[in-house]
């Protein structure tokens, strides 16, 4: 069953006087419980596709449905609430808030829920435990390595138990060892916790960990490869 359904999406940007078409007629399904790698050269539209799925951007035409919800039809307020419940987003440059500890960073999505302080604490501890950073809860981002920062960002993405995890070049700023740790963690989240994961990457090693790989080139889906 498709968790993400993208139908006949047309997306264009206006840059100064020039209109740039990113997608002209994109249709795509992403199954629930899948681990999909989205590859392609710079400017192929990978990040734009991720933003459309996350409801950070809206298609010029066409529909994007996630879990049955028409993302393009929601208001900004509805989208914010929907994202808080359904999307876990991880950035290339981690984007932890430097003034908050790892614990406080992970707690951020839970502040948007009605959970009590005690329940929030329980969920944060669990998320940090899953990413193997229980002992770093009180550390600030500057006190963590790149790999630890990204794992904290992943803990922040999973703490509210979202339907879908979207990761934009999650290993782009990590060394080989840290990359492997993060990718192993993502595989575990997919296999053990049945999280649906979409990862944008340039890294073939990262794509190897995915169950399916999509290639985008100039806004077109040119190849769909299944990884054994």
């Amino acid at each position, binding site marked *: 069953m498709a968790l993400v359904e993208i139908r006949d999406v047309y997306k264009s940007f206006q840059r100064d006087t020039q209109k740039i078409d990113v997608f002209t007629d994109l249709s795509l399904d992403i199954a629930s419980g899948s681990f999909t790698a989205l590859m392609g050269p710079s400017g192929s539209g990978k990040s734009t596709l991720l933003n459309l799925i996350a409801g*950070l951007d809206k298609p010029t035409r066409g529909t994007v449905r996630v879990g049955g919800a028409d993302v393009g039809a929601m208001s900004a307020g509805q989208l914010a609430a929907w994202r*808080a419940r359904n999307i876990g*987003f991880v*950035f290339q440059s981690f984007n932890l*808030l*430097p003034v908050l500890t790892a614990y*406080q960073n992970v707690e951020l999505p839970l502040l948007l829920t009605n959970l009590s302080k005690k329940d929030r604490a329980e969920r944060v501890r669990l998320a940090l435990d899953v990413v193997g950073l229980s002992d770093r809860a009180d550390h600030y981002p500057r006190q963590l390595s790149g790999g630890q920062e990204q794992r904290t960002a992943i803990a922040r993405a999973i703490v509210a138990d979202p339907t879908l995890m979207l990761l934009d070049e999650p290993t782009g700023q990590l060394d080989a060892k840290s990359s492997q740790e993060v990718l192993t963690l993502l595989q575990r989240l997919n296999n053990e916790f049945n999280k649906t994961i979409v990862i944008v990457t340039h890294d073939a090693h990262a794509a190897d960990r995915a169950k399916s790989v999509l290639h985008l080139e100039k806004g077109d889906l040119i190849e769909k490869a299944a990884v054994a």
Partner: protein
Amino acid sequence: MKYLPLVLANLGRHKRRTILTIASVALALFLFASLRTVVTTLDAGSRFGGARRLVALNATGLVFPLPLAYANRIKAMPGVHSVSWANWFGGRYGDGKRFFANFAVDPVSYLAMYPEIVIPPDQKQAFLQDRTGALIGKRLLSEFGWKLGQNVTLQGTIFPGDWTFTVRAIYTPTDPAIGDDVLIFHHEYFDERIGRAGIAGWYIVEIDDPSHSPAIAKEIDDAFRNSSSPTKTGTEREFQASFATMWGNVSLLMGTIGLAVVFAILLVTANAMMMSARERTGEVAVLKTIGFSDRLLFGLVMLEAGVLALTGAFLGLGGAKLLYKATNFNAAGFLPGFNVTAATLVLGAAVAVVLMLASGLVPALRAARLPIVQALRHVE
């Protein structure tokens, strides 16, 4: 409340900037409270005055005296209960740096007319019995270290020479407008020293019925209209108000300076808030990606501005209230009863709220309206 740690963490990001901004707000509101208290103190002084007391002075001006002989004529008028008189002395003590009011009065009638001047009975008796005795406010006692029975010498400025008085009594005013740093002595002694000139600076007339004050004032003025020293009589409140009108432009100046200071600080705070918001464009985008709504982010930025403004207000207004109370400040006697009123504190708090709204609004709107994708390009 669950967002407070996030707000406080953001404020702690640039501690020096936050401290300086709070200090700016605190200083602005301290000055605001101080300047407004000058105005309210002057205003309170102008409203001082018993409803049954009239003041008659020379129509030409306060510096011109009236004949002492007017006392009996005024006292004989219908509706007049009693008459007293006083003369500005203008003496100085020591190096004269500490100014305080000092004047000669007819002590028996004067003290009977001013129940606001409270004196222990034995001291009052001692003062009344000693022609060279002085009645002093309790502040002079503490400031100069004077003691009961001590001789104090003033240098006359209007009436030259050394004038030595013996401190016989200490008063406590029940109305702050009277001031607690005045030296009062016997008019009889004053008159004797200046060669029995028989002059009074002004008369205080106690009447039976306050509703008759316009008629009695007119009667007094009519009685002396064709004399060499015509009078101008009014209620004591009008008399005090005439002093306050001399400060009229000062009040306006104080108010203008106060507003200018607050406006300047508003710009400083708004600038600090905008710098802070600009630096966090990427973080705002990340919070929006997590699911923070535009409205929530607007509220968080406003809350930050609120913490800055209200902390500053608490320090500035509270500091002014405590400082002036602790030091018993009265501007060297020029502003008796100087006290930061509750109304000034409320007004200052309102200014702080306006400051919060004005300084936080632009960055809060900016955060709320920030397009996520565009902002994320800055951080990715």
